[in-house]
């Protein structure tokens, strides 16, 4: 077989072995045994999933627009005055980090909902 074929097959094998490496999560077994996945608890999980997904989606919306404005201003400034590239870059980086932190706050809410959900003790789990 040619060398290229061997290398390609090797890559495909590596990628597929990652999927096989999933172990059975003990929390899932515990939830199934405690009948947490009964029909009356499903709306809770639906709500959690939707809330987490929408939190990050809506949060990135304004962040992207704000960052675009910031970069537009920075590029305009550099095009007018190319000598000040360093200072404008610094200011732009600071501005971008401040704006990005708003999206990070939305991400924190999504992460808390998914991984450290404060309502789970009411269902007797965690």
């Amino acid at each position, binding site marked *: 077989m040619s060398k290229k074929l061997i290398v390609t097959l090797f890559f495909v094998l*590596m990628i597929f072995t*990652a999927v096989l490496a999933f172990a059975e999560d003990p929390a899932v077994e515990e939830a199934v045994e405690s009948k947490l996945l009964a029909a009356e608890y499903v709306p809770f999980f639906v709500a959690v999933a939707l809330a987490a997904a929408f939190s990050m989606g809506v949060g990135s919306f304004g962040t992207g627009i704000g960052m675009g404005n910031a970069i537009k201003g920075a590029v305009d400034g550099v095009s007018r005055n190319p000598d000040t590239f360093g200072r404008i870059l610094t200011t732009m980086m600071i501005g971008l*980090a401040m704006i990005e*932190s708003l999206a*990070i*706050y939305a*991400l*924190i809410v999504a*992460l808390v909902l998914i991984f450290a959900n404060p309502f789970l003790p009411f269902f007797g789990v965690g």
Partner: protein
Amino acid sequence: MEHPILFLDYINEVLGLKHNPQVTYTWLIMIFLALIAYISIRKASIVPNPVQNVIELIILGLGNLIKDTMGEKGMAFMPLLVAEALFIFTANLVGVIPGFSSPTANLNTNAAMAVVVFITTHYVGVKMHGFKYIKQFLGPVWWLIPLMLPIEIISHLSRPLSLSVRLFGNIQGEDLVLLILLFLVPYLMPLPIMFLMILTSALQTFVFVLLTMLYISGAMEEAH
């Protein structure tokens, strides 16, 4: 989330301690930075050898940044700011190595640093202005006080919150992205993400130090 495999947790098991990983990795970073400081100072000379050159570049670069942003009075805060910068940068970068976790990926470390910054700003303000420091909270005219004072207090209280949550969200978010991409495409995708992690680590360090400088210089300036 499954429990991650961390190398230094074995030290905890051997010594029988029950710390969280961020304490162990903070110790590692402290030992590492102390070693670097010791090695670089040991053979200091006027004509610098290579290691000393790099260390001088870093520290003089930070010193110039502090002097540009805060003026001459700000050089008194250089120990705090340089310590913050070196610690946060090293702490962020440690998480890139597989098998190690960043202490800054945990909210406790970041909250500790943010509380230190908060106490420093108010201590500096009170020490420099005395009781007239309250004038900075009151706004330009006297009949706006019921509006300005709660807003200023809330904005001052939100500063440590935003400092710590920004750093925590960025570094923990990187960790999670790396973890999820490791499950999906193991050998190829993590490389650009690791490059992005190094970039974000440096940027977050810079933003933290810059915001600290701005808060301290805002407390030191004359009131309106």
